[in-house]
């Protein structure tokens, strides 16, 4: 044993280590007992008809909690998740795994990605339940026609929108009065104003085109056919006059800086145009810009911003506009409690409408709730003038010629167009590559694409 005495570490250390391993095993044992004790999975699919599992994002949690309060005899299991927003694949991942094991589906899902119902309704996911027999037709008819059209895939309605994100023209009334400008009503007037601003008040902007969804504002709103389903064929035609004329209108503004190719959410935008700088004169954008952008991100002081009606192209009618979001509610086909699920969805979209700071996040898609919500918005004291008329008008003007598809088109816009706009290329020169890239993405997702 003489070598043992030579060791620099005494026996006590090995004893200590032995004890550590014993402690480790004890921890393991405790963990195992705890895990097996609380073994039943928490988010089990409803087995009996009085149970409901609802998946919501953080912003929709108040709705779910309010439902639970109002319906004490229904056992609702509320699960919060990331909302599958911003191009995530959370729901695709989860549904894949649930499908492969044959269990785990919730009854109701709220999604932040407006095109989620499109792939949910089709193979290989086949998750969404048709709503025609679940929600009465007289209730469904109260959603604006474009909203219902968005939720209709292959002729059947699979979702209802919780809120709309119609695009309007946001205007800084204070600055407009200060500079003595009149609010434009057409795209032409808007462009002319932009050119004027670039010379008279350089540094001020009338819009931006660097967001991942900017094409939904400028191209969708102006009826550019880049995502038009005709039967089972997808039309992607960037050479159409509706597209090229918009590009022609905006290009000079990108060049002279009145419509920079920046994203409104990056710090450099806020530094250049927000807060104290207060350089946003106008901005075409969705209804939710009101709080999320102007107040919370750009920190523009109260009493300056208001909304005016979407811009018209020359004198063409009807006036159309685009949409940036608008989350849908989806009911699971595999739900054991379809009736309860439908009841929840209907309540969440047609009844829940608190006032004050607990108000619904987003313009209610269900038309009868819009008026009281708009009143609440106007009374918040943030706006220079009541944005309600503009928002209300725009709700029904969303162009139905732009269909939702199963693949995300925002990254294609960002990668083929915005990147190049930043390095100085014109929008007109990027339309064709944009269309080509969209066609590739569409084909990879199984669409049959026509280019004219």
């Amino acid at each position, binding site marked *: 044993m003489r070598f043992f005495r030579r060791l620099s570490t005494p026996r006590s250390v090995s004893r200590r280590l032995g004890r550590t391993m014993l402690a*480790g095993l004890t921890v393991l044992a405790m963990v195992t007992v705890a895990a097996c004790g609380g073994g039943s999975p928490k988010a089990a699919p409803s087995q009996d008809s009085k149970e409901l599992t609802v998946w919501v994002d953080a912003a929709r949690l108040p709705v779910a909690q309010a439902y639970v309060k109002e319906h004490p005899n229904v056992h609702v299991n509320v699960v919060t998740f990331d909302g599958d927003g911003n191009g995530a694949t959370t729901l695709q991942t989860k549904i894949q795994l649930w499908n492969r094991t044959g269990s785990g589906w919730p009854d109701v899902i709220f999604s932040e990605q407006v095109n989620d119902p499109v792939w949910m309704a089709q193979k290989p996911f086949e998750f969404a339940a048709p709503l025609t027999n679940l929600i009465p037709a007289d209730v469904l008819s109260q959603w604006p026609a474009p909203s219902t059209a968005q939720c209709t895939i292959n002729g059947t309605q699979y979702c209802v929108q919780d809120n709309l994100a119609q695009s309007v023209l946001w205007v800084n009334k204070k600055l407009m009065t200060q500079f003595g400008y009149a609010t434009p009503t057409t795209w032409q007037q808007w462009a002319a104003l932009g050119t004027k601003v670039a010379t008279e008040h350089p540094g001020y902007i009338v819009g931006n085109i660097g967001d991942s969804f900017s094409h939904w504002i400028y191209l969708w709103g102006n009826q550019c056919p880049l995502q038009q389903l005709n039967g089972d064929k997808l039309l992607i035609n960037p050479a159409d006059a509706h597209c090229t004329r918009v590009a022609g209108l905006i290009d000079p503004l990108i060049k002279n800086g009145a419509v920079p190719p920046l994203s409104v959410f990056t710090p450099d935008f806020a530094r250049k145009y927000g807060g104290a700088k207060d350089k946003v004169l106008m901005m075409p954008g969705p209804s939710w810009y009101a709080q999320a952008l102007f107040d919370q991100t750009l920190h523009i002081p109260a009493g300056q911003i208001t909304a005016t009606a979407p811009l018209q192209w020359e004198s063409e009618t009807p006036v159309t506009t685009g949409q940036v979001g608008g989350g849908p509610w989806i009911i699971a086909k595999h739900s054991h409690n379809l009736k309860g699920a439908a009841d929840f969805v209907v309540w969440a979209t047609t009844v829940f409408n608190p006032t004050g700071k607990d108000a619904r996040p987003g313009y209610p898609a269900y038309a009868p709730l819009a008026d009281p919500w708009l009143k609440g918005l106007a009374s918040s004291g943030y706006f220079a003038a009541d944005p309600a008329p503009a928002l209300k008008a725009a709700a029904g003007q969303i162009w139905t010629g732009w269909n939702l598809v199963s693949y995300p088109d925002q990254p294609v816009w960002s990668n083929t167009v915005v990147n190049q706009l930043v390095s100085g290329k014109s929008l007109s020169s990027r339309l064709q590559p944009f269309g080509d890239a969209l066609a590739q993405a569409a084909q990879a997702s199984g669409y049959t694409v026509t280019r004219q």
Partner: protein
Amino acid sequence: MRLVTHGVRLLILAVFAVFFVVPIVWLILAPTKSDEALVTHGPFAFGSLHNVALAWQHLDAFSDHIYRAWIGNSLGYALGATAIVLVTAIPAGYGLALSDFPGRKLLLTLTLIVMIMPAATLVLPIFLELNWLHLIGNALSVILPFSFFPFGVYLAYIYYATALPRDLLDAARIDGCGEWSAFRHIALPLARPVIALVFFFSFVSDWNNFFLPYAVLADSTQYPIQVGLSNLLSSTPSFNPAVGGGGQQVGIFRPELALATLLAIVPVAIVFLASQRALVRGLVTGAVKE
């Protein structure tokens, strides 16, 4: 001459230290500023401690104190799995390094191959296995896969293969020690550095693991902190415009996100400091003298 090389050495180390530390300093200062100040004031401007308190209030209020649950979950998963890892990986490394049994090379090869498999394709089969074992939704569905830590086995293997001289064990065996005794009384005490290494690598790997818990856990109250942070990210209007308008109720903006991130680093820092003490030089000193 000595002084010059010493000075140059310190300079290089300092330059790299700045590279590593500056973003962390930014992160530490971020919760002291308001969301607006984050963008308009300089990166190293100090706001106020009051802002930190506000940020914590909002963070804690998010989804009924779910942040605390997330931290607790991470601790449970990481510690539980690391305990199992220590019990399995250290002896395995020892066995692979210091004895020669049929299949030794095969095990080493398989362990290496599995280590370089991309995680995306492993998630589905692991999910199916866990489902077959009826563990989906259970904490074990995270702890058991985490307990498989081939990186730790290799660390132990390389350590034992290079740092422990075979003569020492041979001498012990000549003296009449059994295999288990030799392991317990010689190999294990001398393995303090690698035990410390395996402990904190396993802990940190479990702490930072996103994809497995994301896939197997359905209830957000069971999430570990990484998945929770990505949830928080999705609730921040500037990262997820789609949540737009809900921000005022949800109350999560960039300072809250920064605070959440910062607090999530603290356990890792503590574990690192604790295990560093075991990384002492010359533990094998004198063991083979004469």
